[in-house]
């Protein structure tokens, strides 16, 4: 089959690879119908996630059709239309049992590697480096789905492929961001980053009771999307001083809840950006935490910072004093797909949310490398390019 492989930093290539096979009894094989890019892939592409190997198939946000199931797969049959969560969970460990799927003890095939990096191994993620299990990703004709009964969900009748697709990753991530933020009725929520994840966080914040959402980015088309589809108020950080503007818009209190949907490759106008970029490039810091710093300063006293933007290693100039003395709560993590997906499919089926609006480009897989280049440079108003192998 063909698959989009990581060759090296900023180098992807469509290659011919063997077809996946059932390896374990709980595996299924899915024919990929749609497979999306995600901001997380940019961290791989840019070389900020170690333990990538030449030839790794990337991609983790996908839906498709079941073509084969292992003998221990109980809930699915050949022909089922499914959406698959990007995070793998065994279903039997204490974490999975408690719905903390991305903490699964058993789904990381390279647990020892992850353990060295983070103290304890975290769950496997499709197409997301060997520290996260080394699983072959979804930018391919077919994909092996381990623990299929836990990670796959049938797509209800009437829900179109393009909408179901984002229940795999962008929607549950945005939803978990809002969920972790502990939004109380009437709260004002600020969301940094208006990519697919940020867009979904905006919608989710309203679903969970926010009275207002203020979305921050610099790309006009993304800000426009946040306004039209998300009913958010928007701020362009290249045009205004974010701290001043947020204060102004919240009666001088600051937003009650702050969501970081940007992560380790934040961009900032001015010197701070170069300070972090240089440190990152000479490996003195692995992640650029500009959004984190800003959110800590902006958040109202006693507020919550919910972080779904991905960080990989170490950060610099973290304003701990502000966080501590203002009594902020930090919540963060890779998302627990399996916990949220049934609920999100309901939202989609009921028409509460149609996440398909974040799909801006639909391309054949052959144009994979080009698609990532566009997504990375945010050209042609690209929010998410989706490959149809």
């Amino acid at each position, binding site marked *: 089959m063909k698959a989009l492989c990581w060759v090296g930093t900023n180098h992807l290539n469509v290659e011919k690879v063997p077809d996946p096979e059932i390896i374990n009894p709980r595996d299924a094989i899915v024919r990929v119908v749609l497979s999306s890019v995600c901001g997380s892939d940019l961290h791989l592409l840019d070389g900020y996630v170690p333990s990538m190997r030449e030839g790794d198939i990337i991609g983790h946000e996908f839906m498709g059709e079941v073509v084969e199931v292992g003998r221990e797969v109980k809930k699915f049959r050949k022909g089922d239309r499914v959406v698959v969560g990007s995070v793998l969970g065994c279903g039997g460990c204490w974490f999975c049992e408690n719905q903390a799927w991305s903490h699964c003890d058993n789904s990381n095939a390279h647990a*020892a590697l992850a353990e060295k990096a983070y103290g304890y191994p975290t769950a496997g993620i499709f197409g997301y480096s060997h520290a996260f299990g080394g699983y072959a990703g979804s930018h391919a004709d077919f994909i092996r789905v381990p623990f299929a009964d836990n990670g796959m969900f049938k797509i209800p009748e009437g829900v179109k492929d393009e909408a179901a697709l984002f229940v795999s990753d962008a929607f549950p991530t945005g939803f978990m961001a809002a969920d972790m933020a502990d939004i109380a009725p009437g709260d004002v929520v600020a969301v940094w980053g208006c990519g697919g994840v940020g867009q979904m966080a905006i919608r989710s914040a309203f679903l969970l009771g926010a009275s207002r959402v203020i979305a921050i980015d610099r790309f006009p088309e993304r800000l426009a999307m946040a306004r039209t589809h998300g009913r958010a108020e928007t701020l362009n950080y290249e045009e205004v001083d974010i701290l001043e503007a947020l204060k102004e818009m919240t009666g001088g209190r600051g937003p009650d809840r702050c969501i970081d949907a940007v992560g380790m490759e934040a961009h900032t106008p001015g010197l701070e950006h170069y300070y972090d970029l240089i440190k990152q490039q000479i490996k003195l810091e692995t992640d650029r935490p500009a959004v984190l710093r800003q959110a800590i300063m902006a958040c109202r006293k006693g507020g919550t910072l919910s972080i779904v933007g991905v960080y990989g290693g170490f950060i610099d100039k973290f304003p701990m004093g502000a966080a501590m003395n203002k009594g902020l709560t930090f919540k963060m993590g890779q998302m627990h797909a399996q916990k949220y997906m049934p609920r999100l499919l309901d939202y989609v089926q009921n028409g509460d949310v149609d996440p398909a609006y974040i799909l801006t480009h639909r391309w054949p897989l052959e144009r994979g490398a080009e698609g990532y280049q566009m997504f990375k440079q945010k050209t042609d108003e690209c929010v998410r390019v989706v490959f149809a192998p």
Partner: protein
Amino acid sequence: MATKKSHVAAGLYGDAHTPATGFANVNVGTTERIISAAGGALLTYYGLRERQASKPLGLGLAALGTCLILRGASGYCPVNQLVGRDSAQHSPSKAIKIVQTFTINRPVAEVYGFWRRLENLPQFMQHIESVEQLDERRSHWKANIPGGLLNVEWEAEIVNDEPNLLLAWQSLPGSEVDNAGEVRFLEAPGDKGTEVQAVIHYRAPAGALGHGVAQLLNPALEEMVRSDLRRFKQLMEAGEITTIAGQPSGRGRDKG
């Protein structure tokens, strides 16, 4: 309880018997041989893996690994010969202990019960090919060192069995492999299942060389015990052992 403890201690620390050598014309003791072979294969494996990642360190590890395998498989060590050292006889060897712990989200009785059926062990002990229960206490073990370079068999005996609490064994005198170990099962607080702790004892070859070998190999052996226990946890909790071996990539089929 007290008598039981001392019994275990005597068995576990191997003070009660000295490992048989069984080989007339070798200058490497059996334990050392096994460890050499296992460690050698591991080092070769890691060494090659490192080399694939194009780090110069890899070559050195691979070479050292091959040397250790030769030494383990043939029972003859050119280095020992050179320094006039003979660890096959009367060597005051050093007891080394490996401890690894995992919490398994299953009831104690189930976890203990699975382990107690020794025939189950090869399902998660990567280098054990088979275990055959001879009677209540004695069992016959077959191991396969990575790469099929060395196959060994030995007999072991359960020296302490406290259901749902503890299981201790040691290889029988005259066995080709000298090891002893115990697994403890403890109910984890907060309804988190069972804490499983494995304690493995083995004897490292004596002297400076032996010390060096042990220092080099101990992390690899620790890793081996740890990965076996991890596989045990996966089997108990997920019903299968997590792997990517055989999946596709731009490199062909992954080895894992």
